[in-house]
């Protein structure tokens, strides 16, 4: 049989494909719908938080920080309640990460403040002596891309039925409304920050990347 296959590249390729595709079909498909169901009360990210999530992805924070708390006492003591599948239903893509050079961040909103994040991003060693994390000063001067965040929210609402604009869920509305809502959500964050440049810019109606990122990190809880 094998000698025959080796002379018939077409059937050979078909066999290889069937053999390798098998695992995916059995392992991935069966539980697919189940795992995508959000935990009750779980809310999708606001536009500002999504913009912050984009900053997180842009700077590859997930290369060093995980967002997956494993069910061990040492981890629940350190980071809080272990992760549940339904908590991730609005995470596109997931940001579980594969390496902890820094600590897990899945519930960082529970134990770190805006002020802490600000200093951490400006000079990590000022709040964590010995930290090997780089500083991200450019986040304080560059604007967050709210429009792309809005585009993403609108896309997941249309394509994947993410429940924006439904009762008890965040409103998305039009682009102008979404922008207003983002400014409103950013206001208390900017208020809690000490960077003058960010405050000045916010008065002009600009939201810096750091503000969006902090909004995202604060939402992780």
């Amino acid at each position, binding site marked *: 049989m094998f000698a025959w296959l080796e002379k018939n590249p077409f059937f050979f390729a078909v066999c290889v494909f069937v053999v390798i595709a098998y695992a995916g079909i059995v392992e991935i498909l069966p539980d*697919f719908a189940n795992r995508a169901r959000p935990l009750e009360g779980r809310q999708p990210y606001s536009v500002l938080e999504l913009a912050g999530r984009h900053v997180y992805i842009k700077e590859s924070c997930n290369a060093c920080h995980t967002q997956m708390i494993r069910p061990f006492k040492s981890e629940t003591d350190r980071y809080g309640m272990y992760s549940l599948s339904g908590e991730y239903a609005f995470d596109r893509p997931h940001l579980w990460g594969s390496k902890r050079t820094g600590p897990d961040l899945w519930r960082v909103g529970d134990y770190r403040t805006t002020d802490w994040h600000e200093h951490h991003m400006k000079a990590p060693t000022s709040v964590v002596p010995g930290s090997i*994390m*780089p500083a991200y000063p450019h986040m304080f001067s560059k604007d967050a891309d709210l429009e792309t965040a809005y585009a993403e929210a609108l896309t997941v609402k249309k394509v994947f039925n993410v429940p924006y604009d439904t009762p008890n869920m965040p409103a998305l509305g039009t682009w102008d409304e979404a922008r207003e809502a983002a400014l409103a959500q950013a206001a208390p964050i900017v208020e809690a920050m000490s960077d003058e440049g960010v405050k000045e810019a916010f008065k002009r109606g600009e939201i810096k990347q750091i503000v969006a990122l902090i909004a995202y990190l604060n939402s992780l809880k």
Partner: protein
Amino acid sequence: MRPGQMLSYDYTVAKLFMFSTIVFGIVGMAIGVFIAFEMAYPDLNYIAGEYSSFSRLRPLHTNGVIFGFMLSGIFSSWYYIGQRVLKVSLSESAFLRCIGQLHFWLYMLVMVLAVVSLWAGISTSKEYAELEWPIDILVVLVWVLWGVSIFGLIGIRREKTLYISVWYYIATFLGVAMLYLFNNMEVPTRLVSGYGSWLHSVSMYAGTNDALVQWWYGHNAVAFVFTVAIIAQIYYFLPKESGQPIFSYKLSLFSFWGLMFVYLWAGGHHLIYSTVPDWMQTMGSVFSVVLILPSWGSATNILLTMKGEWQQLRENPLIKFMVLASTFYMFSTLEGPILSIKSVNALAHFTDWVPGHVHDGTLGWVGFMTMAALYHMTPRFFKREIYSKSLMEVQFWIQTAGIVLYFASMWIAGITQGMMWRATDEYGNLLYSFIDTVTVLIPYYWIRAIGGLLYLIGFFIFVYNIYKSLSAPKLNAEPKNASPMGGMKVEVA
């Protein structure tokens, strides 16, 4: 081709890919060494503003070595081995020659776009699949062109039976195609909403599903780029270089089909103790252990090919490279299953042991095999002998020392980290804060960086050796069997 006429192979495309292997090898490894030093000495993060931070450079490093260096090596070896084992020359088909050239130049374009976009922070964040959708589409085109080249060449072959290497190339092509397509399913947001950036997209899968698909891809990109295609190379180059037939045909069959069947299941071991269903985690764990069988099947088959001919190790440094590569393959396919055992995984997951494991496979197995392939092909491409055998020896030992420093330091660092994370005092309180577990690793990060630097220095020696070979006096014919390094006489036509 008339009867009695010699078949003259066309190496134009293979040579192009050889050069890109070297360029991306230098770039990808240099970035890797640089970010390794960044972890030991964080001030290096600020050399070039946001463009030199660890987080921006890390995807550049992984993509550069996986899809720049290794894939170039795979393509180069395909355009060489393909013609030879199928007994057909690329120059016989203007169409396939054209496809080959197009394959190379489109691939170059993709790599340039990839470097620019990742450096700018345009990323989907999925590991080893960070490229955004417009580039993904180009990647698919590159892959289709390679497929046309593979099946086109097979279509016009003279040798009716497909040699083992061809099985593995076909599997690489199909495997990566399937994985890449499914993992990169994404919806461009601008097209749906009319707002925002044209480059941005959102994943088709959410949360746990996304992670499942991602690690089904991520683990098996390792399978089909780092393993399957490299086995294709060694199954051709080792017998050629040593003049020995493959030890066992049955073992080749068993390990090929075994690897095809088992490998894809093992992705679940990246998700142990995560929120994916328990049975999937167990399956990932169990199949990872089963994976030892086909992996060691290939490796023993390769090593036993040298049976009775071990003195060649002394005479021919190229044989050394390939034997060490197989040995590292065995080592790393034993380490992988150990890491997949739940209790070990609980300790080692998320620690530095993981990059350590990856690198003894990639530096030892893939890197050594890729360089051995280029060493074997260069005299045939350019009809010139390799410049210096002793430089090869020096390179071999420097790089081996580098790998040992790398994985040894990461082993210790990983276990230390894992133990410290879970350490509690007599009242059950955590003993260390997170930063304690970071600062304690700094010495190991230095050792790792130095190990990486040694490997890079070895790579520069390799490049120098190849460069000098190109300017050596030309032979009239390409070497027939073993490479000139083996001390064999070269037949002059």
